[in-house]
């Protein structure tokens, strides 16, 4: 009966980490500027399935600096074409901070960790709440 705690406790820890990362992402959005990036090349990586390609975007900031952003998703053949555009957010004080302007691009780890935390907390919470019903020989009502 203790394994519900093995789900609940890591779930709460992951929730706290997810909220911390989420706060960082929201702070980033508040202080960032928007810019358009263009695919100017590909980054190749080789694995068991052969060579895959990640688009490399060149983003020109308001101050005229260029930021290079390599997409985290690779594919074969490339899913982006040369010159294709996407929106980005970047922190003017930190040129390496650019993130692609999609929901997952902005909150990737928060989304993943919140999802896992929701699973663990719900699963552990159900057994925590209903443990009295699982005791032999006891008639209970919550």
């Amino acid at each position, binding site marked *: *009966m203790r*394994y*519900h705690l093995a789900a609940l406790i890591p779930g709460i820890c992951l929730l706290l980490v997810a909220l911390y990362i989420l706060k960082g992402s929201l702070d980033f*959005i508040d202080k960032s500027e928007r810019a358009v990036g263009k695919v100017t090349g590909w980054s190749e990586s080789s694995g068991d399935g052969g060579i895959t390609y990640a688009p490399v975007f060149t983003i020109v900031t308001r101050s005229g600096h260029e930021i290079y952003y390599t997409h985290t998703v690779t594919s074969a053949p490339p899913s982006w074409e040369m010159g294709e555009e996407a929106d980005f957010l970047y922190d003017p004080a930190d040129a390496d901070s650019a993130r692609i*302007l*999609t*929901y997952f691009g902005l*909150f990737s780890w*928060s*989304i993943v960790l*919140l*999802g*896992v935390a*929701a*699973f*663990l*907390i*719900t*699963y552990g919470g*159900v*057994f925590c709440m*209903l443990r009295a*019903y*699982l005791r*032999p*020989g006891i*008639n*209970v*009502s919550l």
Partner: protein
Amino acid sequence: MVYLIFLFLGTLGLVLSIRSLRASVDFLKNAERATGRVIELVESSDDGETFYRPVFEFTAKDQQQYHYRHHKSSAPSSWEIGNEAVFIFDPADPGEARMLGSAMLNWPATALAVSMTLLVTGLGYVVFRLCYPGLL
């Protein structure tokens, strides 16, 4: 769009899994319970190894004796003759008894947890769109 599908599936899953969980809880609350004892270990062979499946006997309130054959066999046997376990069953149908344990809630709890994951992911997207209109 995929997040709205998550939201829809999460909401649907939440409703269905809560209904399933409620049915399981109602069963746990109202069903009859009886202690059963291992009376036999049924042997079976697979790849030269002998597996043992316990058969329990319990007595319901109607004083009839019922047998429960465990769905899991193991080698070596994880049960011994005389070991006890609690069984839960509908008084009208003791032949369909189940062993009392957290495994009874595994499926509804897993379904609820998956639904909550989908719901949180989808709801996060909707909240983000409402808080930052025009950003995406």
